[in-house]
């Protein structure tokens, strides 16, 4: 496997969606290619960082205002 191919398959490799033959080829390439290993590691770290810090919520004040308002709309809406 060449670097370009590894790069193309990188997401499938991370998500473990490559078939066995390609997974082996990818692993063999990664064992010998420093650059691709750096790309793999830093991509995984990138994903990790966004997963950890992306979890934001509605500011508390807006949240309770929204809830009150929507619950009113819900309760007064027509029932089937």
């Amino acid at each position, binding site marked *: 496997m060449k670097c370009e191919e590894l790069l193309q398959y990188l997401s499938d490799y991370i998500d473990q969606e490559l078939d066995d033959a390609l997974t082996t080829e990818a692993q063999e390439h990664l064992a010998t290619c420093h650059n691709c290993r750096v790309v793999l590691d830093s991509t995984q770290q990138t994903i990790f960082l*966004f997963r950890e810090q992306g979890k934001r919520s509605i500011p508390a004040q807006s949240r309770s205002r929204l809830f009150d308002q*929507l619950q009113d709309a*819900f309760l007064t809406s027509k029932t089937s």
Partner: protein
Amino acid sequence: MDLQSGYYEDSDTLLLALRQRDPAAFAYLFEQYSDKTYRLAASLLKDEVAAEGVVQDTFLRLIERLDQFEGRANLGTWLYRIAYNLSVDRLRKRKPELELEDEPGDGRLPLPVHLVEWQQWPEKLLSDGEVTRALDEAIAALPEKFRIVFVLREVEGLSTQETAEITNLSLSATKVRLHRARLFLREQLTQSLLAIGAE
């Protein structure tokens, strides 16, 4: 309330309770999906106030169509879809040139430019305000059509299938977009980390 929450986990039960205007069912639905739809909208619109507006409109639309909803799709996927469509509507008003379709060349991958090992383990980086800012800037620089797929898959933890349903994309387009998003963000972050480290 704990028993109740488990009770509503079943989508049919929840839908039935909502149709009977059960307040606890609504509270459960809001608890489950308000932040999720907020994050979706905020990531597309980059505007917290507008994102709150999308959450409001999403739930209002759900309430309005509660009796027509066929219950074949998952209730959560339906809410995400409404939020996605409402966000895109708002975005188009602000940005008529918005491009969400596939374009020739979208499948081509740029070669990695920055090949530097990250010095610190990310967990340590999370506490660093500069890094938090770098993350915000990196994702804001990502074009919308890649950003939304990345957020649904990685931040919301949805499957490729669910992400494709919400955004009306094919499975393969969803995968290509996720892949490009990851590589783009990796590049941006490596660059920012180098800059931060150099200070």
